[in-house]
């Protein structure tokens, strides 16, 4: 991840809530070794100058000038209203609609209360705010089906919503779309203690699933900072990833089946629990990562892993980025099956954390340019420990590593993680920030940080950190990324924020096919409109 931390200028800008969801989705293409980072914008009080840079990716902006304009950007949410127009083909909500919903869901589960709507209309970062007048809380798949069937017939646009923890404005309305929140569908349907297959409803909170599995001696194949609030349905719809991706792979591999409801109310039962099933086209993959634009996920069947008790964590210091890369290769080779996390942060990030967070100290006594966190998870305590020690000592002798410590107990391990996960929190305290969620070939990633440092000079503090193990500045960054064959959204998806930017990472032919599929499954385009795919394809 790359952060550009603006030196604070009094009263001129408001910090956005750029809290760390540092362990979020991995890049879609987990084949290429790459680093992923974060993108974030901040809201600014100040002049109402509105930049077109968001949607105009052809404009080469000179960075110095760009930086000056940064403060004056409005948040995308409010500027989008002027850029994206509400599709006039969508109907507006009428009293008869509300009555119908009350009939099928019951009065209690049709929400018109302003306070609750305000929360549901606003995303986690407080960057995007819609103006929906209605939220529906279905209790089961049949109700979701009835809702969608009706909305499709009435041409009412809808937004599927789970924990509302996304960072790209994908989970909140852009205009007045009806919010369909699956939070009430939170039952675990079955768990097979032999195979580890868990079947549950989409509204189950990730942390609750993890707690349930813990009692059975299993773990979820994904873990992210938002686990206390995010739903498994949302995780699947956004192809979330996080810390465990390096070990268990992406949801495309661990989700065995799902049940989804399409725009016309059709219930697609693809809820298999088999690891092997080659019968026809594997449609569930379309829904995984489609961000709610092809259907609403109502049930998920996922393969969980046995819990392993032997966890070891090392905090390493490296002199340069090349050593970090070599260390990654050696770690995969030497630690192999027990490697479960490989994170990096640079000196600027470490300084930031030490300055702004309490009770944090640098585990390594000397200050270095780069720090790496290596975690192993296995079943043999002594064996794993020896393997990690042997690997690190060898790396020390070879000069790949300049110093390092190994956590001796869970407490020490938590304090190491605190440093890495505390970076965004520290940034929030330090001032406004631009975060970029990028995925690049490993050898390129730090070049962009150095490049930007060169261009920005003293104006901003640029730092880099991220999941090294898996890959306004803005147009400049996107173009740089595109030129170096990276992904403009490693983890968070496109949402509304990057809907028009997909061409930076996907070819026109591919995007055209995506649009065809969307139009096939959702002819009226009522599911989560204005997101994921470029607006131009859908405006009347």
């Amino acid at each position, binding site marked *: 991840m790359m952060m550009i931390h603006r030196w604070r200028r009094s009263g001129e800008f408001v910090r956005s809530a750029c809290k760390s969801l540092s362990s979020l989705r991995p890049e879609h293409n987990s084949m290429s070794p790459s680093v992923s980072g974060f993108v974030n914008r901040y809201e600014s009080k100040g002049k109402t100058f509105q930049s077109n840079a968001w949607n105009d990716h052809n404009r080469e902006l000179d960075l110095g000038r760009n930086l000056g304009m940064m403060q004056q950007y409005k948040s995308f949410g409010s500027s989008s209203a002027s850029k994206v127009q509400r599709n006039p083909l969508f109907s507006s909500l009428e009293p008869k609609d509300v009555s119908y919903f009350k009939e099928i869901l019951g009065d209690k589960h049709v929400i018109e209360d302003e306070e609750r709507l305000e929360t549901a209309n606003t995303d986690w970062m407080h960057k995007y705010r819609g103006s929906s007048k209605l939220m529906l809380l279905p209790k089961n798949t049949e109700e979701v089906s009835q809702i969608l069937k009706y909305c499709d017939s009435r041409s009412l646009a809808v937004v599927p919503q789970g924990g509302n923890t996304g960072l790209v404005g994908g989970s909140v309305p852009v205009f007045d779309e009806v919010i369909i929140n699956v939070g009430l569908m939170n039952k675990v349907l079955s768990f097979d203690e032999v195979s580890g297959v868990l079947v549950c409803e989409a509204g189950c909170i990730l942390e609750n699933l993890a707690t349930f599995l813990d009692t059975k001696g299993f773990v979820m194949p994904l873990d992210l900072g938002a686990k206390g609030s995010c739903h498994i349905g949302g995780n699947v719809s956004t192809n979330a990833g996080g810390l465990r991706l390096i070990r268990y792979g992406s949801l495309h591999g661990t989700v065995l089946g799902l049940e989804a409801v399409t725009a016309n109310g059709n219930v697609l039962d693809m809820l298999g629990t088999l690891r092997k099933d080659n019968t026809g086209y594997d449609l569930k993959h379309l829904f995984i990562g489609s961000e709610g634009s092809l259907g609403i996920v109502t049930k998920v069947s996922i393969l969980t892993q046995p819990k392993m008790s*032997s966890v070891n964590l090392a905090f390493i210091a490296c002199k340069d980025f090349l050593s970090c890369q070599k260390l990654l290769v050696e770690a995969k080779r030497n630690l192999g099956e027990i490697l479960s996390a490989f994170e990096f942060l640079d000196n600027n990030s470490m300084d930031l954390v030490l300055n702004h967070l309490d009770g944090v100290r640098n585990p390594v006594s000397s200050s270095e340019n780069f720090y790496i966190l290596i975690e192993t998870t296995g079943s043999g*305590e002594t064996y794993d*420990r020896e393997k990690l020690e042997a690997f690190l000592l060898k790396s020390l002798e070879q000069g790949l590593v300049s110093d390092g410590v190994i956590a001796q107990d869970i407490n020490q391990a938590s304090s190491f993680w605190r440093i890495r996960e505390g970076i965004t929190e520290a940034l929030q305290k330090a001032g406004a920030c631009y975060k970029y969620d990028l995925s690049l070939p490993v050898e390129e990633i730090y070049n962009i940080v150095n490049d930007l440092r060169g261009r920005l000079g003293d104006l901003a503090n640029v730092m880099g950190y991220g999941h090294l193990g898996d890959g306004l500045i803005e147009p400049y960054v996107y173009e740089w990324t595109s030129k170096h064959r990276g992904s403009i959204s490693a983890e968070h998806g496109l949402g509304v924020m990057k809907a028009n930017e997909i061409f930076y990472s996907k070819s026109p032919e591919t995007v055209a096919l995506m649009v065809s599929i969307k139009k096939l499954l959702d002819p009226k385009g009522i599911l989560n409109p204005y997101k994921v795919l470029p607006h131009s394809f859908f405006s009347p």
Partner: protein
Amino acid sequence: MKILVAVKRVVDYAVKIRVKPDKTGVDTQNVKMSMNPFCEIALEEALRIKEAGFAKEVVAVSIGPSQCVDTLRTGLAMGADRGIHVEASYSFLPLTIAKILKSLADVENPGLIFLGKQAIDDDCNQTGQMVAALLGWPQATFASKVVVLDKDKQSATVDREVDEGLETLSVDLPAVITTDLRLNQPRYATLPNIMKAKSKPIKKMTLEDLKVDIKSDIEIVEVTEPPKRKSGVIVSSVDELIYKLKNEAHVV
């Protein structure tokens, strides 16, 4: 001067423990084990005293099954000079441990014995005191402030955390000191030290070598979980509250 530090291998402080179904103890299978946090602090203090020049050698000792060697390795990686592993197939209660440590002290002749004030698995807070009594040495328990050594007078000044506040004691050496949480922040085991630790010796000893009688007068009969907290009840009126306090809780 030599400092002897006793370190205990316990279930890691952050682990959620479960009682075994047969109620004979806590389930330690597949559970992360670490050095007792108080023992870590004790070892750290011993190392600091050595680094200050008051001691020549820090010896870590652990009593238990073969996995105790892992705990000793951690101690060596922190900086202890050598380790002693007293082989024992099951866990002993404080008096037996104290007897073993006394035998060891007779052999090693340390000037100071450091222990953690208590182990987080049994919370006994007895071993340090018993060792001192068996040896006839002075003791300073719950040490919370820097332990200052006076080389010439062969004594130490220790601040203890007691209920009323802080108490400062001066003890003649040799003495037993048990350490409390606020004494220091233990160092991390760095890679260079881990490397050095590999060549440091760990001596194996048996109970026969030390001639210790391990017969215990105490037998653990049963280990159970504490009763689950009952949910509260909301009363509808003051009268009902008084009724409940009188007839159900029997406190009025």
